[in-house]
C-alpha cells in the first residue's frame, strides 16, 4: 500500500515543474500556430473585414475572392509549375549524385583522403556570390532552366550525413558477402545499398526539396526571362514589399480592364496575398505532416552521427 502510494505520488517540486512546463508549452504552441491560423482565416474572409482587423479567431464574411484572383493569375500559376519542375528534377538529381558519392566515401580506395579534403574544403571556403555569378555566366548557364536544376547540386553537409548513415547502418558483412558472390561496386550499390537506404533517401529528399522549393535568390540573380521564374521569386514581388499602393496591388490589378474592376482588384489584392501564402506553403506543410514519420527519425539519426 505504502510503496504503491510512493510510486504514484511525485515530489511537490516535480509536480510544480510539470505544471509550469505544460503552461510554457501551451503558450509556445499558440505562438507557433496562431500566425498560421490567422493566414488561413484571412484568406477566406472578406477583404474589408481583413483590412479593418476584424478577422482574429474565425473567418468573417466568408469569401473565396482571393483564391479566384490567385487562380486567374497566369504568371503565378506558371511560376508554380516551374517551381514544381525545378524542385522535382533538382532534388532527384541531387539525391542520386549525393548517394553515389556518399557510398563511394564509405569504401577504401586510392586517393580517398584527397577526395575527402576536396569536399570538406568547400564547407569552409567559397568563392562568393560575384565570382560564382561570373563563372556561371561564362559557362553559358545564365538565364537557363539547366542552371535552376543543377546549381548547388551537392551539399557537402548532406553528403557527410549520408556517408555516415551508410557506413553505420549497412553492415560490412553484406559487402564482403556480395564481393565473394562476384558483385562489383555498382551492382552492390544498386542492389544492396539503395534498398537499405530508404530512410536517408527520405531525409535527403526533404533537405534538398525544401531548400529548392524555398529558394528565391538564385532566380533573382540568374533568371531574366519572366517565364522561367520560380514561385518564390514571383511571390517576393507580391508579398515582400511595402504596401502603400505598390507593385503588389498593381500586380493583381493589371488583369482588370476598367476602373471599377481596378478598385475591386485592389480590394482583392489584400486578401489574395494571404491566399498566395496558403497556396504556396500549404502543400509543403501537408506533405510534411503526412511524411514526417518517415523522415524525422532519419533526420535524428543523421544529425547525431553527422
Amino acid at each position, binding site marked *: 500500500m505504502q510503496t504503491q502510494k510512493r510510486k504514484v505520488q511525485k*515530489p511537490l517540486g*516535480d509536480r510544480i*515543474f*510539470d505544471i509550469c*512546463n505544460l503552461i510554457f508549452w501551451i503558450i*509556445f*504552441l499558440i505562438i*507557433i*500556430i496562431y*500566425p498560421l491560423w490567422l493566414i488561413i482565416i484571412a484568406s477566406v474572409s472578406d477583404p474589408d473585414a481583413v*483590412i479593418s*482587423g476584424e478577422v482574429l479567431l474565425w473567418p468573417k464574411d466568408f469569401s473565396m475572392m482571393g483564391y479566384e484572383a490567385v487562380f486567374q493569375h497566369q504568371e503565378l500559376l506558371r511560376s508554380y509549375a516551374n517551381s514544381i519542375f525545378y524542385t522535382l528534377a533538382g532534388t532527384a538529381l541531387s539525391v542520386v*549524385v*549525393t548517394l*553515389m*558519392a556518399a557510398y563511394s566515401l564509405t*569504401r577504401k*580506395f*586510392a586517393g580517398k583522403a584527397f577526395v575527402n579534403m*576536396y*569536399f570538406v574544403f568547400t564547407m*569552409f571556403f*567559397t*568563392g*562568393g*556570390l*560575384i*565570382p*560564382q555569378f*561570373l*563563372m556561371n555566366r*561564362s559557362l553559358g548557364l545564365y538565364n537557363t532552366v539547366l542552371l535552376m536544376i*543543377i546549381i*548547388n*547540386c551537392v551539399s557537402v553537409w548532406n553528403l557527410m550525413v549520408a556517408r555516415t548513415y551508410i557506413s553505420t547502418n549497412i553492415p560490412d558483412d553484406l559487402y564482403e558477402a556480395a564481393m565473394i558472390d562476384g558483385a562489383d*561496386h*555498382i551492382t552492390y550499390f544498386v542492389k544492396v545499398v539503395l534498398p537499405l537506404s530508404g530512410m536517408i533517401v527520405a531525409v535527403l529528399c526533404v533537405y534538398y526539396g*525544401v531548400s529548392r*522549393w524555398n529558394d*528565391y*535568390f538564385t532566380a533573382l540573380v540568374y533568371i531574366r526571362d519572366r517565364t522561367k521564374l520560380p514561385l*518564390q521569386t514571383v*511571390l517576393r514581388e*507580391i508579398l*515582400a*514589399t*511595402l*504596401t502603400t499602393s505598390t507593385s503588389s496591388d498593381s500586380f493583381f490589378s493589371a488583369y482588370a480592364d476598367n476602373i471599377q474592376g481596378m478598385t475591386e482588384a485592389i480590394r482583392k489584392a*489584400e486578401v489574395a*496575398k*494571404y491566399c498566395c*501564402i496558403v497556396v504556396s*506553403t500549404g502543400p509543403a506543410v501537408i506533405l*510534411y*505532416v503526412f511524411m*514526417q514519420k518517415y523522415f*524525422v527519425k532519419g533526420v*535524428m*539519426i543523421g*544529425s547525431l552521427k553527422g
Partner: protein
Amino acid sequence: MQTKTAPAVKRGTWTQRFRRAFKNDWQIYLLLLPAMIMVFIFCYLPLYGIQIAFKDYKAVLGITGSPWVGLKNFTDFFGAYYFKRLLSNTFLLNLYNLLWGFPIPILLAILLNQFERERFKKFTQTIIYVPHFISTVVMAGMLYLFLSPTNGMVNHLITSLGGESIYFMVEPGWFRTLFIATDIWQHAGWNTILYIATLTGIDPGLYEAATIDGASKLQKILHIEIPHLLPIAVMMLILNCGSLLASNTDKALLMQTSGNMATSDIIGVYVYQMGLGKAQFSYTTAIGLSINVINFVTIMAVNWISRKLSSTSLF
C-alpha cells in the same frame, strides 16, 4: 629457372591484384565523378574567379585579361565611410542571432524531454517543426502583412489599446528584433532535433539511479541532461562562430526597406546590390573575399581554442 619464375609469378599476381583493384576502383571513381564535377563547377571554378578581387575587371577583357590593381579594391573598402556601418551591422545581427538562437533550441529540447506522455511529446514535435517548412519569402511577407501600419493586425491591436501605430518595417530599431524573432519562430523547433536525438540516447539506467537517490527533475536536468548535451552544443557553437560575419543575404534583402537601412544594410546585401545591381564586380569580390577569410580564420581559431579547453573540436 626457379629464381627467374618466382619474381615473374609474384609480378603476375601483383599486376593481377592491381588490375582487380582497379577493376573495382574505377567504379568507385565513376560513382564519385558526378558529385566532384558539380562541386568543381559551383565551388572550385568560382575560386579561380576570386582573382578579380585584385584586378579591375572589365567584361570585354575577361577575367584573365583585366589589369591587376593590387590591393586597391581592399583598401577602398576598408577606407570607405560605410565600411564601419556594414561591418557592425553584419556582426551585431549575427551575434544577437547567435545569442538568442543558439540556447533556445537546447532549452526547448530539455523541456520537451520532461514530458512523460509520449503522445503529447509527438504532437508537440510535429507542430514545432512546421514553421521550418515556410519559405523566407513567405516569412517576410507575413511580417509585411501583420505589421502593416494601416491594415496589419498588430497595429490594430496597438491602436485599440490606445497606442500609436508603429511602422515596424521602416524603423531601423525594429529590424534586428524582427529578424531574430522570426528566425527563432521558424527554426528553433527544427533545431531541437539534434538535441532531442542526443537526449533519447541517454541510458535510462541513469534516470532510474537518480530517482532512487531522490533527485528532482531539475537536478536530473542539471546533472544528467546538460552534461550529455554539452559536447554537441560546443560543436554547434564552433560551427556557428564561423558564420559571425556570414550574411543572411536572402532574408535581409527581403526585410530591407529604404527606412531601416541604418541597421539592415549588411555586407551580403551590399555585395548583391553593388555587385549585380551596379556591376562593380571586382570591388564586391574583394569584399566577399575579405569576409570569407575572416570567417575562415575565426572558425579555425575557435576550433583551436575549444580543442585546448575542452577537447571538443571539429577536426
